[in-house]
């Protein structure tokens, strides 16, 4: 079957993904994509201004088109459709035959017919190319105006503000987001947005745009007022792109949109229309979730035989929750109480700038809609109550009123939701699917997300998914046991809290107060790590040494044959020739295998325990410090050479990496921590694969967090952009201490982040907006660690008692003669078992005691 898809936007691409996932269809698929790049996340478009690249926004998994033999024609649109011959003629002049045709052309931004609208410096906000043009113009501008105060208009205003323009929003209606929220909500939203430095003009009708006196343009309004600006972005709504359908006689609505039935079929059985170009039951759906649902329905219909067995599109809920410039805004169902007899409950807090409204049926039994501005915590719960017609409690007002101190909020238990309740609308995941996945062994939020895809797109449903996870675990009788081990009936997070609050400094004290038994190889290193994070004492005191994993116990990395490797700190990967020579000399003297690490350091392998203090006293004398390669601790800060040498560098990445590495060296954490600093967006230091990644911008630093290479690569996410040096360090302080405080044992930041209930927004709130009021406390805790840093190896080699512990034998000198090396490529390596068994085998002599 030949299938042509016109359009490779979010919905068009979802269709292709859904189609190739169908088992029973052998399709020969051609995709026409008029943009120069395949599908990307248009919902996250404004992230482009805070540092994300076109690649970051891509929705196409690498190799997707090749793997499924889909013919993608980039930069090629459709010019016409011939329904009789069943062909599509492309803008490249090619004519292609089809059996089934899918129109996913989306919409175009509506630009009101204002004289002067085509002047230079006037833009629309739809594609990456639009954004690139806006960025270029923004760099030459001081003032920017967005025409349109809807959802997209406010996103746009954020973009202009991010470009540091004096920003105005001009709205025709009497309030912002007129479609989604009411007057009360609009007032609160307006004052919040004005506080952020954006000027809002409502009830302004632009009649003409002419040359300005001080700026590029002057806007003239119907009421006689004027506004000067350098750039203008139109965001006055969208219109369906239905021109192809009109031209070939397919039915379209009075106000545009290709008419489709419940299977997303147009009046021609072989032609489908999905997404924002489709008109279903007289309605156009300008959100991505209904578009995805249409894509699923169309793909299944094409693959089904008979097609009426396929699922149907039955409309979609248009409730939305979003964060506009850090302001939570949500609209559910009948937000304007337009239903006959509807009654409202309203709560306003003008000091905290929160507005909440419930709309109920006349008798108060059912929820019809809601508006939440400033705090949208209840969104998930209220949405489910409305969608599933759950009976309201007798006093519904308590659903939106703040709880008095110490009282738990009245709420809807997730138990009340039916199995069919759709929890994740982006990926169409129901409560039943989540419960089944929990039953099948997904007992963490991370695992549940991975298996069901719930909460992996917008993340808005993550709190609800977590509640369902907990409830289902409880129902199944799985105690949610996050105890560290049999000796402590606490999670790592709880132990951390007990240690810090109780000022506990020894394992014996911890065990006698909160645990039982002797401890074990799980809880002892956890306790040692917590003590180090909290009090930063020397890790090899008589009471602490016994708690350390072998690596920390010997301050070196144990290898398969029981020998150790040594990694001195080479901060930022910067090293003088003299120090490099010392490393070479030490390696040569002790016969160590040397290798460059991924973290821009040098690893020396093959030392026996008793040699470590000797080797380290030479290294310490030469000015080296321990590199903590053995610890669950801050490892390296990789850097590129930066603006000092590089033609492209915009900041001194080496200096910043040195600052960061020396600030956090020695910090112990639930798992190792890797950092990097890149001097420009070319990102040579690969900062986006690190726990903490810093990338220079023209104006400062972008801070990325929770990336990982290794087994499960994960791109770091932008936490904050264009920071000055002090703010950068302040946020890293908070981030690290918050992670140390709340993560599980051996949980890297990437996994911790995947399991974080509120996701990236929550993390931003805590770190950037200090929503928990913890900022100062976290910074003070970090300051204590930073101020108490001592090189562990320097301290060890200066302490004869500590050095004694490194002897291989308590009752004899010398080393382990079971350690045997052979030579390979001019260096040593451990002998294999097979080599040892050969009778004639003779290993490389170990340098037993150097002169």
């Amino acid at each position, binding site marked *: 079957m030949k299938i042509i898809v016109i359009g490779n936007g979010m919905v068009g691409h979802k269709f292709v993904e859904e189609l190739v996932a169908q088992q029973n269809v052998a399709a020969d698929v051609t995709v026409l994509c008029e943009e120069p790049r395949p599908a990307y996340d248009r919902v996250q478009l404004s992230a482009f201004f805070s540092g994300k690249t076109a690649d970051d926004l891509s929705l196409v998994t690498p190799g997707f088109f090749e793997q499924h033999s889909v013919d993608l024609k980039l930069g090629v649109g459709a010019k016409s459709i011939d329904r009789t011959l069943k062909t599509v003629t492309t803008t490249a002049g090619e004519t292609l035959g089809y059996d089934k045709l899918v129109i996913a052309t989306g919409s175009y931004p509506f630009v009101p017919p204002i004289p002067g609208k085509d002047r230079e410096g006037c833009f629309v906000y739809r594609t990456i190319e639009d954004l690139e043009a806006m960025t270029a113009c923004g760099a030459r501008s001081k003032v920017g105006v967005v025409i349109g105060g809807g959802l997209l208009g406010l996103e746009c205003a954020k973009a202009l503000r991010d470009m540091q323009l004096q920003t105005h929003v001009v709205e025709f209606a009497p309030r912002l987001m007129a479609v989604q929220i009411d007057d009360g909500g609009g007032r609160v939203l307006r004052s919040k947005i004005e506080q952020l430095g954006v000027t809002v003009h409502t009830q302004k009708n632009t009649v003409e745009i002419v040359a300005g006196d001080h700026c590029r343009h002057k806007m003239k309004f119907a009421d006689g007022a004027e506004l000067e600006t350098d750039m203008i972005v139109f965001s006055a709504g969208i219109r369906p792109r239905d021109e192809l359908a009109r031209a070939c006689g397919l039915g379209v609505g009075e106000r545009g949109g290709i008419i489709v039935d419940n299977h997303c079929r147009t009046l021609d059985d072989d032609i489908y229309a999905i997404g924002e170009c489709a008109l279903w039951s007289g309605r156009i759906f300008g959100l991505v979730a209904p578009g995805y649902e249409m894509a699923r329905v169309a793909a299944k219909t094409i693959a089904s035989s008979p097609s009426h067995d396929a699922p149907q599109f039955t409309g979609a809920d248009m409730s939305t929750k979003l964060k506009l410039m850090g302001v939570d805004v949500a609209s559910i169902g009948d937000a304007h109480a337009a239903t006959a007899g509807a009654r409202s409950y309203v709560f306003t807090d003008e000091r905290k700038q929160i507005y909440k409204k419930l709309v109920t049926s006349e008798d108060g039994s059912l929820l019809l809609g809601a508006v939440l501005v400033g705090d949208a915590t209840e969104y998930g719960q209220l949405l489910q109550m409305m969608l599933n017609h759950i009976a309201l409690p007798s006093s519904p007002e308590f659903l939106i009123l703040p709880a008095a101190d110490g009282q738990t909020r009245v709420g809807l238990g997730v138990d009340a939701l039916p199995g069919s309740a759709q929890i994740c609308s982006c990926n169409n995941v129901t409560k039943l699917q989540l419960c089944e996945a929990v039953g099948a062994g997904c007992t963490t939020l991370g695992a549940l997300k991975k298996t069901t895809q719930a909460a992996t797109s917008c993340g808005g449903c993550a709190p609800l998914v977590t509640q369902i996870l907990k409830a289902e675990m409880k129902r199944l009788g799985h105690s949610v046991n996050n105890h560290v081990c049999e000796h402590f009936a606490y999670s790592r997070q709880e132990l951390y809290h007990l240690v810090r609050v109780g000022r506990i400094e020894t394992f014996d004290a911890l065990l006698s107060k909160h645990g039982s038994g002797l401890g074990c190889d799980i809880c*002892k290193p956890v306790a040692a790590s917590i003590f180090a994070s909290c009090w930063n004492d020397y890790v090899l005191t008589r009471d602490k040494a016994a708690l350390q994993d072998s690596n920390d116990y010997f301050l070196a990395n144990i290898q398969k044959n029981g020998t150790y490797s040594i990694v001195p700190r080479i901060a930022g990967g910067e090293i003088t020739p003299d120090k490099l020579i010392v490393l070479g000399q030490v390696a040569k003297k002790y016969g160590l295998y040397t290798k460059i690490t991924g973290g821009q350091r040098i690893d020396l392998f093959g030392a026996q325990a008793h040699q470590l203090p000797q080797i380290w006293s030479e290294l310490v004398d030469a000015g080296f410090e321990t590199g903590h390669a053995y610890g669950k601790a801050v490892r390296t800060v990789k850097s590129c050479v930066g603006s000092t040498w590089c033609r492209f560098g915009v900041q001194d990445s080496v200096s910043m990496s040195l600052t960061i590495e020396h600030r956090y060296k020695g910090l112990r954490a639930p798992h190792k921590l890797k950092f990097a600093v890149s001097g420009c967006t070319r990102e040579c230091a690969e900062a986006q694969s690190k726990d903490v990644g810093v990338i220079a911008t023209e104006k400062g630093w972008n801070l990325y967090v929770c990336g990982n290479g290794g087994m499960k690569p994960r791109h770091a996410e932008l936490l904050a952009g264009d920071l000055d040096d002090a703010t950068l360090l302040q946020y890293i302080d908070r981030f690290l201490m918050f992670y140390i405080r709340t993560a599980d044992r051996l949980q890297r930041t990437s996994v911790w982040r995947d399991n974080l209930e509120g996701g990236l927004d929550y993390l931003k709130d805590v770190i950037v907006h200090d929503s928990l009021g913890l900022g100062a406390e976290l910074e003070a805790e970090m300051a204590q660690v930073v101020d108490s840093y001592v090189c562990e190896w320097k301290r060890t080699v200066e302490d004869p008692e500590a050095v004694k512990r490194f002897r291989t034998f308590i009752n004899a000198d010398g080393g382990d003669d079971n350690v045997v090396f052979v030579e390979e490529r001019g260096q040593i390596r451990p002998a294999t078992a097979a080599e040892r068994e050969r009778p004639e085998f003779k290993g490389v002599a170990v340098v037993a005691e150097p002169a």
Partner: protein
Amino acid sequence: MSTLWHDVCGVDEIWPNTGVCARIDNRQIAIFRIDRADGATEIFAIDNHDPHSGANVLSRGIVGNLGARTVVASPIYKQHFDLATGDCLEEPSLPVRSYAAEINDGRVRVCV
């Protein structure tokens, strides 16, 4: 093969709840000092050779208890060995030898 009691070191030379390695007749013996909450100090001895990795490392593992057993975890692949019997909890087919050990007049003695 006859066994003999060997004097190894003073008990204070072994830090509480850690192990050391002794060379006795060219064999490597891992010796552990366990200080219990009630103040009692006990000494255990097993082979230092870890049968899973082939390296001589067991004296460098973390000690503790799993249920009623007093154990050490191999620092290489983390299997647990019962200090009293030498049993490997994860892979019973690969145990180590255990040896009698005691404290006598402040000195640690092992019977090898």
